[in-house]
């Protein structure tokens, strides 16, 4: 006597992204903490010293947040106008920020009032940074100049007037106190050496440059502007290495993951993309609610902080090992593992006589019903809310099995309003899924055949039937359009291919995902 063979749940190819190490790594963040700021968040900077507070520049304020606080631990509010580019010094003691009113302010992180005011620019200052010797400040302004300032005296050291448009970004070298790079809206990125009067290298980005980033080795420079992210080799005199065009709106911010293996770019198209720095392929992608203006990663990727135009600051913290363990602990309220394996891992000794006991097979609920030929009940169990929403392939498998047994009609018939609406709900939810359509079409036809007499009796069912009709019509139109596109593509391919004696074959890698055109 053969045992009952359980219904086979078909494994459908996952249409989404492939699960890679990167996916796992970048998905291992908690749900974001969202903080409402006073205006668009233009800049985020992490303090280089522990506890790695970060300064968030938004509107006329700079807030400093602790690594886990949701309230600012400190705020600088003494700006007359919109503040820009709050940056920490490498010792984390000082903070510099530019302002719309062209004054650059230097703050002590523990104080409240500005220590120094650097006046000299004539327009808004969007770029401020400390040089690596900690005694100078680099600023760049909308008056097309960038300047170096001496901190102790608050005096201007040098002025560079090479750019021909707003200077909106820049970075100082961490290794050399004299080198700094600025990016401007005149499409160029310039490398300056404070020891000489002029720029050393000029790179043409092609679009207004929004952000520049130096690799930790400082051999490579990344610039972002327009939809492009470009990587330049500084050691080869500013030779372009790669040009990445993965965003469909302006890229506003760049960041490197702490080990330098991954590059992150944030854009106005609401995405943050993660590139591998070895092959510059996108390995992961984050979605956000609004256009992103600023992006920063905590050291060791402990958190990802993103500032958006809708003045929301989103902070994602990495899940700790302890946290994940805690969650696992919560789930384990069932009998302990010991109970399940009790006696099962016993290895018989040499002299033992083994009495084998037939292993009791466990069937799923729907299989138990199917074994007893209770077709309606089997469908009921397969339509349970959890299965219906989380595992539609199980419901599909049961419907398919019932169809194979020729008893789908019996199973579908004789339902009350609630049962029918549940069924229709499932249909509406999964009807246009190409993987499920072939089976659901037969089921839908049967449902219409069975229940056509009760149309008009229940407003709920009527509404759902109308929705279903709508859905089918829409899908038909969609498929028609797709076929048209396919035709166009075919003609294009045919004309672009060289004429050969042998008709060139088309490669189809996904036979199971073929388009379905029937209603």
């Amino acid at each position: 006597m053969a045992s009952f063979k359980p219904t086979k749940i078909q494994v459908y190819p996952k249409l989404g992204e492939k699960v890679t190490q990167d996916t796992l790594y970048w998905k291992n963040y908690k749900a974001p903490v969202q903080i409402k700021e006073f205006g668009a968040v233009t800049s985020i900077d992490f303090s280089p010293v522990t506890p790695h507070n970060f300064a968030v520049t938004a509107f006329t304020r700079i807030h400093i947040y602790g690594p886990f606080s949701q309230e600012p631990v400190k705020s600088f509010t003494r700006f007359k106008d919109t503040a820009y580019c709050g940056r920490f010094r490498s010792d984390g003691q000082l903070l510099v920020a530019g302002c719309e009113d062209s004054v650059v302010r230097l703050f002590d992180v523990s104080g409240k009032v500005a220590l120094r005011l650097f006046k000299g620019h004539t327009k808004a200052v969007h770029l401020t940074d400390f040089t690596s010797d900690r005694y100078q400040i680099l600023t760049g302004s909308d008056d097309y100049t960038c300047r170096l300032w001496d901190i102790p005296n608050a005096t201007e050291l040098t002025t560079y007037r090479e750019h021909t448009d707003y200077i909106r970004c820049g970075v100082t070298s961490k290794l050399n106190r004299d080198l700094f790079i600025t990016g401007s809206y005149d499409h160029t990125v310039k490398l300056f050496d404070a020891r000489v009067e002029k720029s050393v290298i000029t790179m043409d980005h092609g679009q207004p440059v929004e952000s520049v980033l130096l690799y930790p080795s400082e051999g490579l420079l990344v610039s972002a502007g327009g939809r492009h992210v470009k990587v330049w080799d500084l050691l080869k005199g500013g030779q372009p290495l790669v040009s990445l065009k993965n965003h469909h709106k302006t890229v506003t911010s760049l960041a490197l993951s702490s080990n330098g293996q991954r590059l992150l770019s944030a854009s106005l198209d609401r995405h943050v993309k993660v590139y591998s720095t070895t092959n510059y392929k996108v390995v992961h992608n984050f979605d956000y609610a609004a256009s992103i203006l600023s992006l920063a990663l905590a050291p060791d990727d402990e958190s990802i902080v993103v500032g958006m135009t809708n003045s929301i600051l989103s902070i994602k913290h990495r899940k700790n090992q302890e946290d994940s363990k805690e969650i696992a602990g919560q789930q384990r309220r069932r009998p302990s593992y010991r109970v399940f394996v009790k006696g099962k891992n016993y290895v018989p000794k040499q002299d033992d006589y083994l009495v084998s006991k037939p292993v009791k097979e466990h069937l799923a609920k729907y299989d138990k019903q199917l074994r007893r030929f209770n077709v309606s009940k089997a469908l009921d169990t397969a339509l349970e809310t959890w299965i219906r929403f989380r595992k539609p392939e199980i419901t599909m498998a049961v419907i398919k099995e019932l169809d194979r047994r020729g008893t789908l009609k019996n199973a579908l018939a004789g339902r009350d309003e609630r049962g029918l609406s549940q069924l229709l709900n499932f249909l509406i939810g999964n009807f246009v899924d190409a993987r499920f359509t072939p089976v659901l079409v037969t089921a839908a036809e049967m449902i219409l055949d069975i229940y056509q007499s009760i149309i008009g009796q229940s407003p709920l069912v009527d509404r759902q039937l109308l929705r279903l009709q709508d859905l089918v019509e829409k899908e038909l139109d969609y498929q028609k359009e797709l076929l048209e596109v396919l035709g166009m593509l075919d003609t294009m391919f045919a004309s672009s291919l060289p004429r050969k004696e042998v008709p060139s074959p088309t490669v189809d890698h996904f036979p199971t995902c073929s388009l379905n055109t029937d209603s």
Partner: protein
Amino acid sequence: MVEHGDIRVVHCGGSKLNFRDPVITHDSRFLLCASGEAVKVFSTSTEECIHELRGHTGLVTGVLLRPSNHLQVYSSSLDGTVRLWDFTDGILIKTCVIGYPIYSFYASAKHENIFVFAERFQLVAVHLPQSGDQLVEARELSAVLSGVNPNPAAIAFGRGGEFIASVNDLQLEVYFFKKQKSYRFFLKEDNKKGGWNTFTCVACHPKDDCIATGHEDGKIRLWRNFNHKKEYTYSTLHWHHSAVSSLCFTPEGTNLLSGGVESVLIQWRYKQESERDFLPRLGAAITHITVSPDGSLFCTSHSDNKITIIQSCVKVSAVIQGLVKGDSIRTDLMMDPRSKALVLNGKPGHLQFYSLQRDKLLYNLDIVQQEYIHESGLQQFEVVKAAFDASGLWLATVEERHQKAAELELNLKLWAFDEQTQSFVLNTTISAPHDAQITAMSFRQTADSQTTLLVSTSKDGHFKAWQLAAPAHTEDYIQSVNCPSWLCDFVGAYHGLVPECCSFSADGSLLAVAFQEVVTVWSPATWELTFFFFSPPSISDLCFGRLSCSKYLLGTTASNLLCCWNLLTCSCKTSPCIKVLSTQNFFCDSLNRFISLFLSFLLSVFVFKPSEPRPLFSRKAVCSGKVTQAVFAPREEMLESCEESSQWLNRSQLYFLTQQMDLMTFTTKAEEDRLLASSKQLVIDDSVAMTPFYLLLGKHRQQQQEHRDSDSSLWAERTALPQTSASIKELLQTPAHVLPSTSYLCSMFVQSLLISVSDARSAHAEEEMESEKEEEDSEEEMESSRSKPELVAAATESDAPALTKAQARELRRVRKLDHSWLAGLLDS
């Protein structure tokens, strides 16, 4: 053409087991069933075929135990004879010629006569003459009933043979022998609920006046009081949803067994019909049910050529499975390169592996892996194509299900051979690999077998190449699936024509795909079309030559041409092109270079060498009916035949399947003689079931025989003398209940038996003495208390319960004579 007298067509097993209901002997140890032209005797415990009772020249249509002697059995056949056999020894005792083909026959203990169902729908009583002759002719025939259903289940004897019940169509006829009177009961054609009342089978209660009839609509009616024309009553039992195919009462009449298409055996309690026992999922529709005379075993035969032996506690104890022959062989006959078994589709959704050498089903591979619903008119998944790769490591199967309204459901499955379990394990399932039916599949046969490639052609106009892809990820991806799976590598088409067949060359460097009338040759390395041949009528079969003929590509066309293209000249040179009448199939030998060709209408077979236009061998009218499938099977050992005509049979054997699903083969005379000789040598002592213990004991018996033969010279001739060791003494003299566990003793005991060679030589002389001493020991022991030897003897006898009295006496005598056998036995 030359007639080859020495090559003959013979049946080679795989015959039907479920043609008539099997018979279980009185001691429930043997099961007899009609199988083709022979009666097979199976052991109920080991499922082995013990011997075949051969002698009939026509299909055996019935097997019955002789009511007066339960060690003898009658068999009837279409050749018009009834034969009496001694089934324990397989000896034909008597042949009784009746003269008419017998379709079924019955016997009852109360009657001298046996009843045969012969021509013209008549039931005839035959008196078998009581003469001692081997061959007698039965003259006394008397018609009993006319208008009888040819189905053997439609007639049954009533209580003690007092009456006979026969059903036909809508009529139940009961004939009382004493009164010489028959009563007829009619049912209406249709009752109100729309059921069919047609009778299908009948069974009579052995102790009670009750007739059970099965009906087309699944009802079972129990008729009582039927010795009155008017006052008969019946009650109805209903569980089956389609026709009841078999009914049977247990010998005491306490239970009624019924079965049908649902493949569920139901045990109804007589007079408490609401209580039922079920034995579901027996595998295939039940065709016959029989019960052993002592009621301890039930036996059901199934439509898939299977006999299931069921204990009366409704538990399956044994399954005798023959070659499953469905309605059609959708997959061609194939050879498993690894086990050299014949592979074809058998049970629905299964692929069967059948050993031709042993005439035994090895196993069924479940391809569809779905619960089979036993219901007529239901479209099920069927295995339609299968292909092995050259090493037998991969198996590709295609299953399809075609419903009228819905789309075609296709699954391509790839199975990898698992060394550990010695069976195929599912590796990849590709649902909907093509849009239409798959017409052919072929694996690439490469010597290095590094990259495995499968090509499938389909009616949707494409052929696809599937490649075994290593897990397609570098260090970035997770090794979630570390076993390789199959992916589509290439999709090819040719002017929208439908590809019919495909074939890889022997070295795997070329792929030929026939698109109707165009044969395209591709190179699998680059997937470029290298060249193509054009032959006006469409190609129905393709294959490359092997070994020395590998430059030839052969094809048969729809207009009865066998074409052969030479690939070296690379042109459409159809060098040997033979005009033949309607080629049906042709099959290529995998080992040597021969091609056989079957012509359906001529019923002929031709064997060619691809390089020569003249056939090597031809034979007309090989069998009655068309040849549907054929396969070359490699031989286990090569034949040494020097004759040119039969040389093609040297290394392989050609098996073919006729329309009647008979498996046939060609043999040479020499081979047949050899086989016959070997079968004579192999006379199995089958009084005992073939258990391991029996083997042990059987050896001992042979030894014992030798001892007795040698008698006085026994001692001199003995080479292996019983070892007198402490362990033996311990084993034999210590009471059983104080002995340590057997497994503990055993290792010690075996170790004590292991002696070094030198030791054995030197100890030879004293062994004699010691064994004598032991002899005395045991003698004494026996005199004091006979308990131990008897215990051992009981143990030996327990497995052989049916020792005759003579044997028992012999055994006792032997026991008195010689007790060293025990040690000898242990020694062996």
